[in-house]
């Protein structure tokens, strides 16, 4: 029997790491605070750039960890250093002594209501990117009109915003906005779709193609300017104000619905773990790695490793790659390499 490894977080990072650690022969415990595995990704409908079905991806990942011990609806109560490893108590009463711990606690979606001027939770037709994905997954959402004629996407909601407490770019929202804009245009071909952006940060493989398609094939309008405020008109439309910085004039438009691209912020729910395990928080609020270039998965504490968005904003492929790397790093660590 090999050593125990505990993975905190059952999102894609946790799932991928669990699979690999299990294959490497470790007794792997995957603990997830929600009742379902898959994390944020499970809410999503389709993933760029392949427009792959999230359901299928998560199902495959979950099937791959059939033999892993999974604690759902469970949290880490205490974690303390003991006997060359960590003694961990879970909220379900189980205690495990783990040789290594993988923190894969991911991120939290920025609470869009904090950007008060956008009126999330106040205006009838303002939703977030996550709400839209849930709707595309079949969830009913009264905020989305039956046949919207004008749809807006606001980039950088809670990202690149000192006042919102997050000066960082959330990296995936530009691409998500364009993906969702295209998906909405496909569903509502007669709708005008506007993306309000500051910079289009389309860094990944094939991302720029989405941008080109959005312009050329879907006629999606890109307005360079951060939305300054949203208000509701008497007939329930949303009046959006921004500066069109490319011509240097204020701009307003009435929309039927507005999607806020809520960014990724650090997951504060792991604060207790951070304190007990004496982990460090970086200046961006995410967990601090040994360094951010070659040791992003290392915590600087023996036996504790990181994978995925707990150390900063990540795409799904980056997260999966980190999870595999972390599994290997744990294997090396336990093997004394």
């Amino acid at each position, binding site marked *: 029997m090999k050593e125990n490894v505990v993975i905190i977080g059952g999102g894609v990072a946790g799932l991928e790491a669990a699979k690999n650690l299990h294959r490497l022969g470790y007794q792997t415990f995957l603990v997830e605070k929600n009742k379902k595995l898959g994390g944020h990704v499970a809410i999503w409908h389709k993933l760029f750039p392949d427009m792959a079905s999230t359901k299928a991806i998560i199902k495959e990942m979950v099937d791959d960890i059939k033999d892993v011990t999974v604690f759902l609806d469970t949290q880490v109560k205490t974690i303390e250093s003991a006997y060359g490893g960590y003694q961990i108590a879970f909220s379900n009463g189980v205690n495990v002594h783990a040789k290594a711990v993988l923190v894969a606690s991911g991120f939290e979606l920025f609470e869009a*209501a904090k950007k*008060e001027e956008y009126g999330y939770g106040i205006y*009838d037709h303002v939703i977030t990117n996550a709400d839209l994905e849930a709707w595309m997954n079949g969830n009913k959402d009264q905020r989305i009109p039956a046949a919207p004629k004008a749809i807006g996407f606001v980039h950088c909601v809670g990202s690149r915003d000192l006042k919102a407490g997050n000066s960082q770019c959330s990296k995936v929202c530009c691409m998500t906005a364009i993906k969702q804009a295209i998906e909405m245009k496909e569903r509502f071909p007669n709708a005008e779709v506007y993306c309000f952006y500051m910079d289009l940060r389309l860094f990944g493989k094939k991302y720029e193609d989405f941008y080109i398609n959005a312009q050329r094939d879907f006629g999606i309008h890109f307005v360079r300017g951060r939305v300054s*405020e949203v208000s*509701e*008109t008497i007939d329930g439309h949303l009046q959006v104000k921004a500066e069109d910085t490319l011509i240097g004039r204020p701009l307003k438009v009435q929309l039927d619905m507005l999607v806020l691209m809520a960014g990724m912020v650090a997951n504060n729910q792991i604060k207790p773990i951070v304190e007990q395990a004496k982990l460090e928080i970086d200046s961006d609020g995410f967990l601090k790695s040994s360094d951010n270039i070659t040791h992003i998965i290392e915590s600087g504490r023996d036996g504790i490793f990181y994978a995925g968005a707990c150390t900063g904003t990540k795409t799904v492929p980056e997260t999966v790659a980190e999870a595999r790397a972390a599994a290997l790093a744990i294997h090396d660590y336990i093997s004394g390499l």
Partner: protein
Amino acid sequence: MIYEGKQKIWSDYQKEIPDDHWYYVRSCIRQNFFPASERMFTEITQKVLGKDVYETPYHTTCGGIAYHCDTIPQETVMTIVARQFALMTEAGYENYCPSCITSFGNYAETLETWREFPELEAKIRENLWKACKREFNKPKYLAHSSDLIYHWREEIRKRAKHLLINQETGEPLRIVEHIGCHYSKMFPHKGVGGAEYPYVLAGMVESWGGQVIDYPERRHCCGYGFRQYHAKANRGYSLSNTHKKFESMEPYKPDAIITNCPGCPYFLDRWQYVIAEQTGKTYGENGYGIPVFTYEEIAGLVLGYDPWDLGLQLHQVAVEPLLKKMGVEYDPKAKYLGLNKEDLMRPEMPNSIKCC
């Protein structure tokens, strides 16, 4: 519009307002244009509510308007502010209540700047000593006079003679609230309800039975813009901004506007008159405008004061339609009479907007 969402924000932006012992300073503009409003403030707070609201004859303007017209240096305005604080300190008060929003912003900005740059505060203390041989303590609490009325809104409601309810239909009156820009835009946490959905006036309206209207251009400036009004050449800017707001609120058919800023009620009132003269357009019912009030005037009406004691005769937009809706009794003939009922003649009537 989801009301609960706003409530959540309001709960995030509550400020501590001591219940008593306030040092009161007056507003230049309000004294000129709404003399009765300030008088009502002391009347309500001191006489009706029995609060300790102290005023000294030695206080002056804070210089805020001159400062925002860029005619005096920052050090000058800060030293004037320091003098005001010194008067407060000498009077033994530590809760400071300006009647003016520009002042309120000016004090808040001064305190904030001193906090950030203590060397500047030291410099100002030195200036004040040099000029006036005075010293001061910074106020412990800073609240605008509308904050106080907001704070005591329920007590006023308890004594209410009229509510903001249409007596004919029984429906709440539709009230547009307009907040002065310098109330919370610079420092959202210094205003009740924050910068985006300020609650200070909305709270009064709700408490007194009215319905608050949220229209697209609600947050926007009336267009005062200091130099944009005080230099005649620039008044088109001021007019245009008010026009934009009225165009935006028009479809909601508001019964009245309530404001907490010295300039705003003047501009929202007079620009309606100018728009009517220039374009023929009026925004109220039957050729009237939408009456504009200070919060003291509304509070005074709620408490049952005579409209002409509240100074409503100095409005260019007729207030009578609202008085009728509220069921306030008034003597139309007394509107333009002097203190001892002496005849002061009547002002000329405007051409394009109905007046009484």
